């Protein structure tokens, strides 16, 4: 294969790469000839896209369907205050083009789904998994296996990060390690659990490093190895990963031969749904309705957020029992009370409502959209978070 030549400007721009023997002129031409698809332009996608663009990867694909929100900016450094409200893929593209005008940036302003994933990923050399949910992670893995492409994986939670290169041709895939996802609700999301803003920077730059190693064919990529990072301990641990002979997508007797319904497989939605923050028909109360009801009725308010969240915003006279303790502290509640359960945005409380209902509490409603809905629609002095 003939590699593209570098222009005079490109030779100057990438001179620090050209000085490294492991990269050199030929390596830089390889990068120019390479293409990567980055799933998600969030915490991980930000440093990954920035550094791969800066490194001169010739074509970068970005998949996202979200818009930039100010709460993203604590970690999603590819975006900025001036792009709040803009499509993330457009915000990211503009930054990348400013950084490296010679590269090509293809944007896909759509959710990555079983319907479009193969079409989108087919023409890229390598996939980077910077997603934020289990259904899209399993989808990304299966797409990479079916198309025979390396999947540079990274995942983060609070202070922990994981990185590996899943490449079924040469080693295990994501499903070899995690054959199935944890049941919904077992692992808190970052929206519930939070994440140290710099963590995706650390992990995303390692992910970008692995991508460059694979594209250049240098060093020892994390194929068959998983890096485990903890920011508090500043620990880097490595474990060995082996191909799982019973793997359902890359094993010798694989029975999953095409993309499946990943939301059903994981039991959770991968993309925002209109019913987010709702407990379902007849079980919700809106913030304005609650505001009216508490004027005339005695209602018990049950706040199932974590104690440190109460420092951000709180409703007066609410009882706080964090969701994780609810099952063990049911005796503190009276099933005869009319009750409204709430959390930050209505989802944890919907799970709490399920738990209460199964324990015989019949007079419970879920505050739809949580205390954030109250802050938007009733008391605008209350902060949103």
């Amino acid at each position: 294969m003939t590699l593209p030549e570098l222009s005079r400007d490109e030779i100057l721009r990438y001179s620090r790469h050209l000085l490294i023997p492991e990269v050199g002129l030929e390596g830089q031409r390889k990068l120019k000839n390479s293409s990567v698809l980055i799933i998600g332009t969030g915490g991980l996608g930000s440093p990954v896209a920035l550094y791969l663009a800066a490194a001169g990867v010739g074509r970068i694909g970005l998949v996202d369907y979200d818009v930039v929100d100010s709460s993203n900016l604590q970690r999603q450094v590819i975006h900025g205050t001036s792009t709040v409200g803009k499509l993330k893929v457009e915000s990211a593209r503009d930054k990348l083009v400013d950084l490296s005008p010679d590269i090509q940036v293809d944007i896909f302003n759509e959710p990555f789904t079983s319907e479009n994933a193969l079409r989108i990923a087919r023409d890229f050399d390598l996939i980077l998994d910077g997603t934020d949910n289990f259904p899209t992670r399993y989808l990304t893995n299966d797409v990479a296996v079916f198309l025979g492409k390396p999947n540079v994986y990274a995942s983060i939670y609070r202070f922990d990060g994981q990185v590996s290169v899943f490449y079924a041709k040469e080693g295990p895939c994501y499903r070899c390690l995690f054959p199935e996802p944890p049941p919904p609700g077992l692992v808190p999301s970052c929206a519930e659990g939070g994440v140290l803003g710099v963590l995706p920077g650390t992990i995303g730059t390692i992910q970008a490093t692995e991508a460059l190693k694979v594209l250049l064919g240098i060093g020892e990529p994390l194929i068959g190895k998983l890096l485990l990072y903890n920011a508090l301990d500043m620990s880097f641990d490595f474990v060995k990963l082996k191909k799982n002979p019973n793997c359902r997508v890359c094993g010798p007797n694989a029975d999953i031969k095409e993309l499946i319904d990943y939301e059903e497989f994981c039991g959770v939605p991968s993309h925002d749904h209109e019913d987010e923050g709702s407990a379902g028909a007849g079980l919700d109360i809106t913030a304005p309705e609650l505001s009216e009801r508490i004027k005339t009725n005695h209602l018990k308010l049950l706040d199932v957020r974590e104690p440190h969240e109460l420092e951000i915003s709180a409703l007066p006279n609410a009882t706080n029992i964090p969701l994780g303790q609810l099952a063990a502290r049911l005796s503190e509640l009276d099933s005869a009370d009319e009750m409204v359960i709430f959390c930050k945005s209505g989802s944890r409380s919907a799970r709490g409502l399920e738990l209460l209902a199964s324990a015989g509490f019949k007079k419970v409603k879920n505050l739809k959209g949580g205390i954030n809905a109250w802050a938007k629609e009733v008391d605008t002095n209350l902060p949103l978070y």
Partner: protein
Amino acid sequence: MPVLRIPTPLRPYTDGLSDVTVGGSDISEALTDLTNQFPTIKPHLFNEGGELRPFVNLFVGENNIKDLQGVNTPIKDGEKLMLIPSIAGGCHCESSRSNLLDFAGA
């Protein structure tokens, strides 16, 4: 005695401890000791039938017990054990309906 590294998502069930010293000569005994010390972690590791949940990965040193002898894998004094969680990263899918009832034992 072996030391078990607890991942961040499971630390609420070990009083915030990142490392727990566990007794036992194999993984099964070590996990029994862990769940005796911290009973609320049990449903996060084991299903109702008392088997390790499929998404729970436990490593002895660098090796997954699934590649060794499973819960019968022998362990030595001072050996480093690690629980490796399945984390989704940066997730905003708060709307996931839970099996919290299972974990509550309800």
